[in-house]
């Protein structure tokens, strides 16, 4: 197609930026174009983007699928913004992604936290039990929606079908954060997907297990949602210059998954099962899986997730994470206090698995210690003193972190990854939380959120709330 570009982007198929063209390649920069009549418009799709969305909806078994270019963060935010307005309640587990908290700051919704149970041995947050969700629903009959992680970062699933029917029978919507669950729609023997479970919306990270480019994502909706309304919500925050690189990567990945997903994820499961058995044979490490399933807080487990508990090797997960990268040139997804997660996907081969397993074996031989002295990651029940939005915008003051116990925090404190808030705006700071922050910092976790990048000070609400 030889169209003379007198529109944006200004690099004009790369000619104006030869270094960029050399870096990314001519094909890539020539695809970086603006919305135009033959290429449709993401804000109001009527032709090729619309067709791509319809094909995606069909592939994922959804009533509609929205192509998203602002990451799964924007898909999650759109779900929340489409569901709740100021003062509305949303029932959700504490171990939600920061994007959910961000959406509540934007719209003024009030979180009703369900305590995800915590596994004492692993020190990880689990899923919400159906019974706990039911209690929250009964206690908060005015809530608008229930939000579920399907699965968590660690691969843990709640009983989504039951939670959907509980929500629906009380007139609430059910939303699923499926940032880590794209493959549920294509693999066999994996946990149920949100659309198959009857959920009303799902945010699906195509760029994670789906293989598309970073920052591309899908928002799926069920039959109860009004497509036009959801589109309006998306357009409140999404760019009007949607990247065609991201859009085309979504479309081509959808095609790949629809044609070859079943076989591809069968191989991923095989690799993950093999890696688990080899890692468990090393000793010390515990690569956990379906044996944890208990019908409640761990209703199902995503076996493609290679989550490994490292505490019996005498090392924090974050320490193993650093050693793998610094000593063995292996970059894994994350390490928290007690666990690491190696992300396996459709791009992995047996030889890389052998490297990972061998490196873990060497880490244990060279750096292993006795278990003593490691604190577990514990669930800290948050006390929501004021709504996230109110706290975020209220007058605040900055205090040395040690002096903040008992005050109400007005900003986020995140341990990233996995991006689960330790503190969210509106929550009361406790001694236990401060101890946890100090320990996680000392162990090398990347702490983000507060205005003070070193997290020596925290912003708290002025006056006593």
């Amino acid at each position: 197609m030889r169209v003379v570009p007198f529109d944006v982007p200004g690099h004009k198929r790369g000619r104006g930026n030869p270094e960029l063209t050399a870096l990314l390649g001519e094909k890539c920069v020539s695809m970086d174009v603006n919305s135009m009549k033959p290429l449709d418009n993401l804000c109001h799709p009527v032709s090729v983007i619309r067709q791509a969305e319809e094909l995606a909806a069909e592939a994922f078994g959804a009533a509609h699928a929205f192509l998203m270019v602002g990451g799964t963060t924007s898909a999650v935010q759109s779900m929340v913004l489409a569901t709740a307005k100021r003062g509305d309640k949303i029932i959700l587990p504490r171990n939600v992604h920061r994007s959910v908290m961000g959406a509540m700051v934007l719209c003024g919704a009030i979180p009703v936290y369900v305590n995800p149970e915590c596994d004492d041995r692993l020190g990880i947050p689990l899923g919400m039990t159906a019974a706990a969700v039911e209690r929250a629903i009964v206690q908060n009959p005015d809530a608008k929606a229930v939000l579920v992680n399907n699965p968590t970062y660690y691969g843990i699933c709640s009983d989504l079908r039951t939670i959907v029917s509980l929500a629906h029978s009380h007139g609430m919507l059910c939303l699923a954060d499926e940032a880590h669950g794209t493959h549920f729609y294509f693999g066999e023997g994996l946990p149920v997907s949100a659309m198959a479970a009857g959920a009303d919306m799902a945010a699906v990270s195509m760029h994670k297990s789906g293989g598309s480019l970073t920052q591309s994502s899908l928002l799926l909706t069920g039959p109860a949602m009004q497509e036009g309304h959801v589109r309006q919500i998306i357009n409140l925050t999404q760019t009007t210059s949607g990247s065609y690189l991201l859009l085309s990567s979504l479309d081509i990945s959808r095609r790949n998954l629809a044609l070859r997903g079943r076989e591809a994820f069968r191989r991923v499961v095989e690799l993950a099962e093999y890696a688990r058995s080899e890692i468990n044979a090393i000793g010390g490490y515990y690569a956990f899986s379906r044996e944890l399933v208990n019908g409640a807080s761990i209703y199902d487990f995503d076996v493609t997730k290679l989550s490994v508990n490292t505490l019996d090797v005498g090392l924090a997960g974050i320490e193993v994470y650093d050693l793998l990268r610094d000593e063995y040139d292996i970059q894994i997804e994350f390490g928290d206090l007690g666990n690491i997660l190696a992300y396996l996907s459709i791009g992995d081969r047996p030889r890389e698995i052998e490297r990972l397993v061998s490196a873990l074996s060497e880490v244990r031989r060279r750096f292993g210690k006795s278990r003593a002295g490691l604190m577990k990651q514990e669930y800290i029940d948050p006390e929501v003193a004021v709504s996230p939005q109110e706290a975020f915008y209220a007058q605040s003051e900055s205090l040395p972190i040690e002096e903040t116990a008992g005050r109400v925090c007005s900003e986020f404190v995140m341990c990233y990854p996995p991006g689960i808030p330790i503190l969210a705006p509106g929550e009361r700071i406790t001694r236990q939380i401060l101890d946890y922050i100090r320990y996680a910092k000392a162990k090398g976790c990347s702490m983000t959120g507060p205005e003070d990048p070193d997290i020596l000070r925290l912003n708290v609400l002025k006056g006593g709330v």
Partner: protein
Amino acid sequence: MDLWFSEAHSADVKFSIRVDRQLYSGQSEFQRIDVFESPEFGRFLTLDGYMMLTEKDEFIYHEMITHVPMAVHPCVRDVLVIGAGDGGVIRELCRYDDVERIDMVEIDPQVVEVCRQYLPKTACSLDDPRVSIYYEDGLRFIRSREDCYDLIIVDSTDPFGPGEGLFTREFYGNCSKALRDDGIMVNQHESPFYDADAVACQRAHKRIVESFPISKVYQAHIPTYPSGHWLFGFASKKYHPLRDLNEKRWNDRRLHCWYYTTTLHKGAFYIPAYVEELLKHVESAD
């Protein structure tokens, strides 16, 4: 007929051998395998288009990777050979009566099959009763072995493709664990000459230095490998390749070689200045 096999030794250098006929071509689970017959080099084996060995010059590689450690270690009983599907290293090892056990780990059974059929000059000792062949990933095999070998010979392909796991720190660390306290590891160490090869050479050296207290490099002249100048690594927990060389002991064995002598052994560790520099650079890094 004008039929040639060519291999790019760098982006701008090509090495060609006139081919008389192609004896075998096949694709295994891991790589493409070809065997050619040539007027100058006799039969030769390539994997994914890279030269592995020719009948004419394989003796240089196989003698140098085997006899150097054997002339240093006083008492080699248990040997692990990784890669080496062509059988050349096994052939040299089987000349030592006091070697009791040779475990050979080759990832690709098809390479061994093809070599048995078309390269009997190297594959001739694969059926020696002391040899056990394991068809699996070398990295996997060695993970579970501890304190059980006197010598490990890493006869790998290049550090890309199926052999890349054999150039990693986790592999060398596991080798160190699998060796006895006076064990020696010898590895195919790439060439220092062309830039891309030199980088691979440096990386391998750096990782070996991190895993063994003694780590030296020696050289040989191999006409069909890129630049012809090839290196081997000698790593050990105890023995020094020159100070612990016992010339009399080895010469009393009366093993006749075409390339290796105990005099050449000593010379092989005197490497060119630029190679010394290259290696020193990574030895001192962090």
